């Protein structure tokens, strides 16, 4: 099961994200918008996104080893993925999450 996940994440399984931001800085806003767009486009109804503002939830930073903001952590499925930055590099985000064009096609086939 684990090895299966490692090699090719099951597209059908919902992806759980946490996005850590700090207030409403331009970077934070961009990151929120970017991940929302990606999720709507590629993971419609198959994702959970929790946006955490570290200014109001101070414990979050330590729990998820956050140093840099914005940071996107994918908690599920494994492996855990971390992305730093405002997520404007869409291609990088997709490849990190294992959501390539081909995979999107194959997911439509199934």
């Amino acid at each position, binding site marked *: 099961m684990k090895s299966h996940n490692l090699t090719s994440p099951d597209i059908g399984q919902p992806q759980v994200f946490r996005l850590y931001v700090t207030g409403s800085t331009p970077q934070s806003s*961009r990151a929120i918008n970017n991940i929302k767009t990606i999720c709507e486009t590629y993971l419609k109804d198959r994702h959970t996104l929790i946006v955490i503002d570290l200014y109001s939830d101070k414990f979050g930073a330590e729990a998820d080893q956050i*140093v*840099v903001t914005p940071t996107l952590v994918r908690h599920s499925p494994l492996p855990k993925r971390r992305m*730093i*930055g*405002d997520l404007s590099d869409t291609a*990088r985000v997709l490849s*990190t999450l294992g959501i390539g064009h081909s995979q999107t096609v194959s997911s439509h086939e199934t």
Partner: protein
Amino acid sequence: MKKSKAKIQMKALQKSSTGIRGLDEITGGGLPTGRPTLICGGTGCGKTLLAMEFLLHGASEFGEPGVFMAFEETAEELTQNVMALGFDLTNLVARKQLRLDYVRIDRSELEETGEYDLEGLFVRLGHAIDSIKAKRVVLDTIEGLFAGLPSQAIVRAEIRRLFRWLKERKVTVIMTGERGEGMLTRYGLEEYVSDCVITLDHRVMDQVTTRRMRIVKYRGTTHGTNEYPFLIDQDGISVWPITSVQLRHEASRERIPSGIARLDAMLGGQGYYRGNSILMSGTAGTGKTSVAATFADATCRRGEKCLYFSFEESPSQIMRNMESIGLKLDQWEKKGRLQFHTVRAFYYGLEMHLAQMIKAISEFEPDVVIVDPISGLESTGNTLEVKAAIMRLMDFLKMKGITALLTDLTVGSNAPETSNSDVTSLVDTWLVLRDLELNGERNRGLHVLKSRGMANSNQVREFILSDNGVQLKDVYIGPNGMLTGSARVAEESRDRAQQVSRHEDVERQQLALERKRTAIEAQIMALRAEFCAEEATTLRIINQEQQHKESLVFAEEEMGRSRQHDAVKQVEGVAHKIGMKVRNQ
């Protein structure tokens, strides 16, 4: 006036005590309060420990809670590491005096997808500081950010911002940094910290390592500029600077006995001056340790404390050996008056030895320090260094009023009056132990080469190590100089024999005199008896003559009366005749 000046200074630069022995001394009070301090050095030089101690002392002694942000070690590892030093991190954490935060950045896990900043770290640190109202912060080591994050430009900008932010929060910060090539730190952290930079060093010279510390810069204050050796032992870090090089110590007039009564007699009758440095040089086997141990014994017997540094023998060996001359040193050790510090000279460098000795002296606070032998230190540095080190040690001891006895091994062809350590000009009293060779024997001799401020004997005295300790013998000067060993013993017995015969002579003469007196008295008795006899005879004759004369007078009177003559004339003539006769007898 002075007060207001002090006040201004206080305002200008407040310092936070590190609680680390000696570090506050060389920094003039501690690290700059509310500002960052950079501590840099190579691997294993003690950066993390120093930073951790800063927090621990702050939390437990100065009521300043601290945050330790670790980029390399986890909280568990840190807890374990300082456990060995007797600090209970868990307890401090539970009491909200300390907060550990392990920041893990794994570059391989991170994907850079756009612009970012380190606000997350700020929030984390800010939260940690707020949660325990921290006054002190350690970042160990912030270089982890450079290694963990892809964009160095962002990291640099953010670190600069971090320090501004920390200054605004008025927390005292230590950040550590690994030493880099040609730079203090690998990533040039020193450019962010302009207030205080301390380097730690762990240098190997002649296969011996010495830890050193130097304050590279400390803005707005005076500080010690030397490299100071420091120790890491079971008590953590300690620096032992000898900052005073002034000759200002108070000279004591008190005298303390050496433990050898006749040696005291040689030293003006009272022994050493308290607080003086005494050098005792001699070739191998001349009894240096024995004389030193006797002094130690005498010190403890007085109820004072003695610290004995030995570079050659273990404590038990010294105690066993000294038992053979009747010194029971173990009793003093048990009573806590005598402490041994034994270490091979080559285990540490000179500075480390010095630092350790000063530490031991400061902790034990002895009245007397014995270093046996000081020449043990020679192997740890060149002559100049050793001399400087010993000088500093002696200054330190004098400042504290501690009497020091240093033994020195003279080797090889050197004359007994030379000392390899070349410290003879520094010492106040110099005793030389030497071999005295005579009649195919080697014997031990002792003389006082110099002793400042007291009349001292100029004699070379033979001393022996007996069951009852060190004993100086009487001096015998023969036709060929001083007699020692069996020659002295022979001389002594000859002396004794002569004394005996002289004594007998006197007795004989007294007896003869007595006899003569008796004889003369007998003679006097005899003469007196003879005289008595003669006197008796003479008296008898006189008596007879008297009677005869009386009867003659009577007869003549009778005759005259009968013849009716002129009575008076006749009587006078007879009386005259009788007087003549008596006088002739």
